[in-house]
C-alpha cells in the first residue's frame, strides 16, 4: 500500500508467486462453445488473424519503461511491445528471452548474458548488448524515477564485451535475476541522445515508440486507444508471429459502459473486471471469467499508541469480531480468500495447516470483557477507565475499501466497539500514516508484496519511526527470523523461516489481515487461450487467437 499500486510498477512484487500455485494458476473456465464451433477443434494454422480488443478503466500513459507506473502499462511494455532479458516460465523459473543464455561466475559476483542475434527493433536496427547497457545505466540513474530500481540495488556495473555479450558485476543476493524479468530493454539508438531530464517528455513514450517485441506500435489516440500489430519478424523459436493481426487497448473510464461493451461484443476482454460483475458473468453463457491470484492483502492497521490497540489479545478479539468470509463475498464477490497473516496462500512457503482466526463475535466480546472493556453506561459502546472504545477508521477513496470500512463498522458495533469510517484523499492518508507521529487510530489499506518476503521495513524494531513501520511493532525474536530470511539460500531453510515469520505476525495481530486478493479478467466469446497467471494476463498474448463463426 505504501506503494499505491496504481502508481508504482507491481511487476516485481507480482512475481512473488510460487511454483506451488503455478499449475492451478490459470483458473479460466472452459471456453464457451455456444458459437457452434469447438475452439479446441480449430487447427493452429487457422488461428491467425483478427483484431482483439482489450479495454480497461485506466489509460496506458507511456511506452517508456523508465516511467511506467501501473500494472497494465508494465504488461504492455514487457510482453507486447518490448522484450525483457529473461522471463518467467510457468513454474516461476527464469528462462531465456532476449538473452539466449547466461552464466554466473563461481563467486556469484559476475553474471554474463549472451543475447540473441536475430532480434531487431521494429525500425530495423538490431537489438544489441549496448541497448541493455543503456537501459541499465538509465535505470541506475537517480535522476530518473524508475519505480523498480530497488531490484537492481545490488547490481553495480556493466561491461559490453561484444555486440551480443554483456557482463554485470553485482553483490550476490537471493533471486538476483528477478529484475531482468521485469525490465523491458529500451532502444539506445533512439533515446541515448536525450538528456535524462527530458526523457519523460520524449515523444517515444506517447506517440512514436519503437519496440522489438511480438507486436509493433501502430497508433496511440490519447484518451482513447493504443493499437499494435503483429510483428512478422519475431523469432520463430520464441513463438514467431503472434496469431492476432492486431491488438487494441481501449480506455473506457466507466465500469458500466465497459461491461456493456463486453456484453455487446464491442470489447473482447475487460481487463481487471470489477468484482461486482462476477455474478453477471457467471449467468451469461457468452462470457467467461479468468481469475488469477495476486500477492496483495487488505488489512487494518491498529495504532498501538492508542489505548485500545496496545494489547494483542484485544487486537485478536477485534479480528475475531469480523466475518472475513462474508466480507470477501460481499466486497470481492468471491475474488479473494480470507488471509491468515502476511504470508498468502500464493506463496510457496505458505503453510496449509495455517487457519485464520475464527469468526467468533461472542468469544471476541468475552475477551474484551476480560480485558476490562465493559459497557458500563449502557450506551452500547464499551468503556475502560472512562475511555470509550471508539476510534476513527481511515481509508482512501477506493469504493471497495469504503465498502469494507462500512462492513467493519457494522461488525464491531455488534461487539460494542465503535469504528467511525472516514475517507481521506490517498496522498493525505499516506502522509499521515507514514509520518513518525503516526497520525491515525486505525487505517484500512492493502499491501502488495515482493518476491522475497523481506518485510523488515514494516516490522523490525530498528525501523520504528521509519515510514513503513506503521504500527511501531517490535519483537526481537521476530527480528532474528526476518534477518535470516534474505540470507537463506536453501529453500527448505527459507521455507521454515518464512513460516515462522508468518506465525509470529499472525499471533501478534499488529494488523487484522482481511483477505488476499484474486484478480480477474472478463472475456467475451471470441478471444481464446487467455490464461492469466501470476505473470499477468498478457504474458501469453502471443498465443491468443480469435474464434470466428
Amino acid at each position, binding site marked *: 500500500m*505504501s*506503494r*499505491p499500486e496504481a*502508481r*508504482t510498477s507491481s511487476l516485481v512484487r507480482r512475481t512473488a508467486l510460487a511454483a506451488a500455485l503455478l499449475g492451478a494458476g490459470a483458473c479460466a473456465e472452459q471456453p464457451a462453445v455456444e458459437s457452434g464451433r469447438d475452439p479446441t477443434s480449430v487447427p493452429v494454422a487457422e488461428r491467425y488473424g483478427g*483484431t482483439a*480488443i482489450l479495454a480497461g478503466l485506466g*489509460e496506458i*500513459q*507511456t511506452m*517508456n519503461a523508465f*516511467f511506467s*507506473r501501473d500494472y497494465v502499462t508494465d504488461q504492455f511494455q514487457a510482453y507486447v511491445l518490448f522484450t525483457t532479458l529473461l522471463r518467467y516460465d510457468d513454474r516461476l523459473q527464469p528462462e531465456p528471452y532476449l538473452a539466449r543464455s547466461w552464466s554466473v561466475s563461481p563467486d556469484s559476483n559476475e553474471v554474463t548474458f549472451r543475447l540473441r542475434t536475430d532480434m531487431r527493433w521494429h525500425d530495423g536496427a538490431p537489438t544489441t548488448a549496448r541497448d541493455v547497457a543503456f537501459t541499465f545505466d538509465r535505470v541506475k540513474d*537517480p*535522476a530518473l*524515477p*524508475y*519505480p*523498480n*530500481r*530497488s531490484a537492481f540495488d545490488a547490481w553495480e556495473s556493466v561491461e559490453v564485451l561484444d555486440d551480443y555479450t554483456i557482463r554485470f558485476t553485482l553483490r550476490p543476493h537471493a533471486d538476483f535475476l528477478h529484475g531482468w524479468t521485469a525490465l523491458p530493454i529500451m532502444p539506445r539508438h533512439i533515446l541515448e541522445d536525450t538528456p535524462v*531530464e527530458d526523457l*519523460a*517528455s520524449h*515523444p517515444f*513514450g*506517447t*506517440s512514436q515508440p519503437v519496440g522489438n517485441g511480438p507486436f509493433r506500435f501502430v*497508433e496511440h*489516440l*490519447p*484518451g*482513447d*486507444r493504443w*493499437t499494435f500489430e503483429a510483428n512478422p519478424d519475431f523469432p520463430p523459436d520464441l513463438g514467431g508471429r503472434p496469431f492476432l493481426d492486431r491488438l*487494441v487497448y*481501449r*480506455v*473506457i*473510464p*466507466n465500469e*458500466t*459502459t*465497459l461491461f*456493456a*461493451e463486453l*456484453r*455487446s*461484443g*464491442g470489447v473482447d476482454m475487460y481487463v481487471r473486471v470489477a468484482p461486482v460483475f462476477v455474478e453477471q458473468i457467471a449467468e451469461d453463457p*457468452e462470457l467467461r471469467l479468468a481469475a488469477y491470484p495476486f500477492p496483495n492483502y487488505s488489512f487494518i492497521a491498529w495504532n498501538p499508541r492508542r489505548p485500545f490497540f496496545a494489547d494483542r489479545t484485544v487486537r485478536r478479539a477485534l479480528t475475531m469480531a469480523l466475518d472475513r468470509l462474508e466480507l470477501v463475498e460481499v466486497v470481492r464477490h468471491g475474488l479473494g480468500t480470507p488471509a491468515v497473516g502476511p504470508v498468502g496462500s500464493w506463496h510457496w512457503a505458505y503453510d496449509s495447516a495455517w487457519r485464520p482466526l475464527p469468526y467468533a463475535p461472542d468469544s471476541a466480546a468475552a475477551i474484551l470483557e476480560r480485558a476490562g472493556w465493559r459497557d458500563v453506561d449502557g450506551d452500547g459502546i464499551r468503556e475502560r477507565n472512562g475511555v470509550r472504545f471508539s476510534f476513527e477508521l481511515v481509508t482512501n477513496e477506493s469504493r471497495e475499501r469504503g465498502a469494507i470500512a462500512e462492513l467493519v463498522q457494522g461488525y464491531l458495533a455488534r461487539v460494542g466497539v465503535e469504528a467511525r469510517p472516514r475517507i481521506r*484523499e490517498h*496522498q*493525505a492518508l*499516506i*502522509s499521515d500514516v507514514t509520518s513518525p507521529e503516526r497520525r491515525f487510530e486505525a487505517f484500512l489499506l492493502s499491501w502488495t508484496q515482493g518476491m522475497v518476503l523481506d518485510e523488515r521495513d514494516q516490522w523490525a524494531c530498528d525501523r520504528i519511526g521509519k515510514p513503513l513501520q506503521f504500527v511501531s511493532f517490535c519483537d526481537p525474536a521476530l527480528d532474528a527470523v526476518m534477518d535470516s530470511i534474505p540470507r537463506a539460500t536453501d529453500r527448505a531453510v527459507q521455507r521454515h523461516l518464512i513460516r515462522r515469520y508468518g506465525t509470529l505476525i499472525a499471533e501478534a495481530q499488529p494488523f487484522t489481515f482481511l483477505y488476499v486478493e484474486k484478480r480477474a479478467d472478463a472475456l467475451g466469446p471470441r478471444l481464446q487461450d487467455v490464461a492469466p497467471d501470476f505473470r499477468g494476463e498478457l504474458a501469453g498474448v502471443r498465443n491468443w487467437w480469435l474464434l470466428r463463426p
Partner: protein
Amino acid sequence: MIRYTARRLLEAVPILLGIVTLTVLLLHLAPGDPATAYFNPNVSPEIIERMRENLGLNLPLHEQYLRWLRSFFTGDFGYSFGQHRPVAQVIADALPNTLVLSAVSLLLIFVLGCAVGALQAVRQYSALDIATTFVSLFIYSMPGFWLGLMLILLFSSPALPEVLRLPISGVTSIDYEFMAPAQRLLDRARHLVLPSFALGIASAAGVSRYMRGAMLEVLSQDYIRTARAKGLPETAVILRHALRNALIPIVSLLGLYLPLLFGGSIVIEVVFSWPGMGRALYNAILARDYPVVMACTFLFGVLVVFANLVADLLYAVVDPRIRTD
C-alpha cells in the same frame, strides 16, 4: 456593427484576465503540494524538487502568476506529469472532440427544442402540448449520467437487432483507418448520436419551454392576426411570420446553454468514453495533474466568453435594435 464588435471584444479582455487570475488562485488555494502527488518510494527528493520547479511552485506567488499569465497567452501550458507530454498536446487532442460534441449537441438542442416548442404553442392546451410538456420536464429533471447509462444499456443490448444498435463509447470504430472516406464520416456520425443526445436533451427540453412562450407571444401579435385576416394559409402564417420572429429571442439562449454543455461534458465524456476536455479535466484532477487542470479550467472559461460574444453578435445581427443599447 464593426464598432459594436470591437466594443464587445474589448469588454472581453478584463474577463479573460480575470479567468487567468481565478484559475491561478483556485489552484493556489488548494491544500497539499501537487509535487507530492507523485508519491513513490523510489522518487528522490531531487526529482520532487525538480517537479516543483517545473510547476513554478518555488517562485513567489506574483511570479507564479506572471508565469501562468504568459503561458496562457502563448499557449504553452507546461508539461503534464500524468500524461508525459506537453499540456498543449493534451489540449490539442481533446479540444476538437469536445467542440464537435458540443456543436452537434447545440444543433440538436435548438432544432429539437424549437420544433417541439413551436408545435406546443401552435397546439396550445392540446393533448400533444400537455404530453410533450410533461415528457420534456421529465427529461430535464433526470441526472444526465443516469440517462446516458440507460441509453448505453438500451443501444448495446444484445436483444436489439444489429441494425438498431449504436456505438456506446469512443469517437471512432477500431477499423476506422481501413474505411473509405464516406464510411468514416458515417462512423463518426454514429459515434456522436448517443453522447450528443445525452448531453443536449435536457437543454433541448429547456429551449422548448422558452420557444413555446416566445411563439405564444408572437402568435398573439396584431400582425399575425392581420396575416390570417388576409386569408393566408395557416402553415404559411406560422412558418413565414410567426416562427421567424419567435426565433429571434431564442438566439440569446446560446450563451446560456453553452456553459451547461461544457459542464455536462465532464460527466457525459466519462460515461461515453469520449476523449475530450471534460474527461481530460476529470482525469487530471484525480491524478493531481495540476498543469492540465489549470489549462482545462482556463479554456472552458475562454470558450464560454467566446460563446457569449458570438451569441451577442448573432443577436445584434438578427435584431439590429440591440446595437444602439
